[in-house]
C-alpha cells in the first residue's frame, strides 16, 4: 500500500544564500506514514521541527528531495491539512463559533456555498465545539475563555473543514499540566473517531508517547531524524497508562537519545532556525 505521507531525501535551506553555503534547516528527511497514523516529532528547540511543519503543509518547497502526501506530490499549500500552534491566535472580534467557521469562508468547496449553507455550517461548528467540551461557550468571545478552552477552539478551527491531516506545533506548550492532560484526551478521542492523520511537533516526551503511534526524534543542526520508535501500547489509552512501567521505559529511552544528542551538540554549534 502506498504511504499517506512520503518524504524522500528532503533537504531545505531557507534561502539561496544559505543553500550556497550548504546550510540546511533540515537534512535528508525520510519519512513514511500510513493513513490514519498519529506520529509525533520530538527534539530540542531549534532543531527544525517547525520547518518540517512548513514542508508538510506545502508552505515551503524542499530544496532537494520529494514530498508526496495522499498520493500527490506537494507543490503548494495543502488544503487537506489543518494547523494549530502554541498560540491559539483566535480573532478577538469574532465569537468562538465564528472563529471556528473562518476556514470555511476560505477553503473550497465550502467557500462558494458559504452564504447558502451558513446555517448548516454553523450547526457543524457548534457540534464540533460541543464534542470538545465547549458547549455553552460557542457565542462567547475568545478573550472570555480560559487558555485551555481557547486552545480547544483553535483545534476545532483546524478540524472544521475535515482535513485528512492535522498538524500541531507544540499545541499544549503554554498550558498548565492538568489542562494539558485533559487536552491530550480530547485530541485522542477526536482522532479515534475521525481517523485523520496527525503530525504532532512537541518537546514533551510524555505527550508524544501517550498520543502517538510512532515517535521520531530529531537532532539539532543538522536537523535530521535520528531515531524512530514505534509505540506499541494498546489503544484506547487511558491517562493511567502514563504511570505504568512500560510507558516510563519508553519515555526514558527517548530521553536517553535526546540527552546523548545534547551532549554531542554541547561542543558548540549555533542555532539554526
Amino acid at each position: 500500500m502506498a504511504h499517506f505521507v512520503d518524504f524522500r531525501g528532503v533537504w531545505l535551506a531557507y534561502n539561496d544564500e544559505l543553500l550556497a553555503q550548504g546550510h540546511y534547516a533540515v537534512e535528508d528527511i525520510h519519512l513514511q506514514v500510513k493513513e490514519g497514523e498519529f506520529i509525533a516529532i520530538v527534539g530540542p528547540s531549534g532543531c527544525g521541527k517547525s520547518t518540517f511543519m512548513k514542508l508538510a503543509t506545502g508552505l515551503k518547497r524542499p530544496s532537494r528531495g520529494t514530498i508526496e502526501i495522499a498520493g500527490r506530490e506537494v507543490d503548494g499549500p495543502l488544503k487537506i491539512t489543518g494547523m494549530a500552534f502554541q498560540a491559539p491566535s483566535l480573532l478577538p472580534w469574532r465569537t468562538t463559533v465564528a472563529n471556528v467557521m473562518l476556514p470555511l469562508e476560505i477553503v473550497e468547496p465550502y467557500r462558494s456555498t458559504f452564504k447558502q449553507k451558513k446555517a448548516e455550517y454553523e450547526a457543524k461548528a457548534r457540534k464540533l465545539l460541543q464534542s470538545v467540551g465547549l458547549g455553552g461557550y460557542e457565542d462567547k468571545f475568545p478573550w472570555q475563555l480560559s487558555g485551555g478552552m481557547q486552545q480547544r477552539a483553535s483545534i476545532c478551527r483546524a478540524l472544521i473543514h475535515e482535513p485528512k491531516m492535522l498538524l500541531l506545533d507544540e499545541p499544549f506548550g503554554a498550558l498548565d499540566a492538568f489542562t494539558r492532560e485533559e487536552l491530550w484526551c480530547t485530541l485522542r478521542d477526536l482522532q479515534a473517531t475521525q481517523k485523520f492523520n496527525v503530525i504532532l511537533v512537541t518537546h514533551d516526551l510524555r505527550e508524544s508517547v501517550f498520543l502517538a503511534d510512532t515517535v521520531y526524534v530529531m537532532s539539532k543542526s543538522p536537523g535530521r531524524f535520528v531515531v524512530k520508535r514505534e509505540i506499541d501500547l494498546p489503544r484506547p489509552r487511558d491517562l493511567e497508562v502514563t504511570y505504568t512501567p512500560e510507558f516510563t521505559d519508553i519515555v526514558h529511552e527517548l530521553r536517553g537519545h535526546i540527552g546523548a544528542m545534547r551532549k554531542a551538540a554541547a561542543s558548540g554549534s549555533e542555532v539554526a532556525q
Partner: protein
Amino acid sequence: MMSRKSLEQASPWILLVLVLLVWELLCRAFNVSEFVFPSPSKIALALQDQAGLIAGHAWRTFWVTMAGFGLSIVVGVLLGFLIGSSRLAYTAVYPLMTGFNALPKAAFVPILVVWFGIGVGPAVITAFLISFFPIMVNIATGLATLEPELEDVLRVLGAKRWDVLTKVGLPRSLPYFYGSLKVAITLAFVGTTVSEMTAANEGIGYLLISAGSSMQMGLAFAGLVVVGAMAMAMYEFFSIVERRTTGWAHRGSQGH
C-alpha cells in the same frame, strides 16, 4: 463621601474649575491688565457679548476642518492600506512620508495661497496635510503586524492575500484606525486655525488675528476657548465611536 469612581469621572471638571479659579484669583490679586492677560470672567463676558460673531467664525472653522479631516481619512486609509499590505511599498514610501511629516505645515500656507487663493482652499488643505499622517501610520501598523502563525493557518487553506487582508488585517486595524481619528481631528483643527490666521477672511484663525490687532484680548481668548472646545468635543465623539465599534479591543480588566 464621593466614591472613587465618581471622583474619577468628575476629576477633569474639578481640575478645570480649579484652574479657572486660580487664573481668576491671580488676575485680580495682581491686577493684571485686560489687554495683557484677561481673566476667565472677562473672557466669558466677551463670549457672551460677541456670541453671534464668534459662532459665525466657529461654524466656518468647524466645517472647513471637517472637510480637511474627511479628505485625510480617505487618503490616510488608502495610503495606509497600500503601505501596510505590501512590504515593498512600506519600505519605499515610509521614509518619504516621515520626511514630509517633519515639515512644518504652517510653511505650506503661503504656497497654498498662491495655488488656491485666500479662503477655504488653503485651510482645508492644511487641515488635511497635518492630519492624514497618524491615520495612515495606524492603518499600516495594524495591517503589518499580523501574527505569522495565523497567516500560515489561512494560507494553507489557499487564502489569497486579499482574503487575509479583509478577514483579518482590516478588522484588526480598526481599533488603531479609530484611535488615530481622535489624534487626527485635534491636529486638523490646528491646521485650519493656523491657515486661517494668514489666508482667510473668516474663521476662528482670522478672528484671533483681527481681535489681537485691535487689542480685543477678551475676544481673542474667547476664540481660543471655542477652538479648544470644538476639538475636545470631536475627540470625545470619536472616543465614543471607538468604544462602540471596537469594544473587543478595549476590554480592560474583564478579559485575561
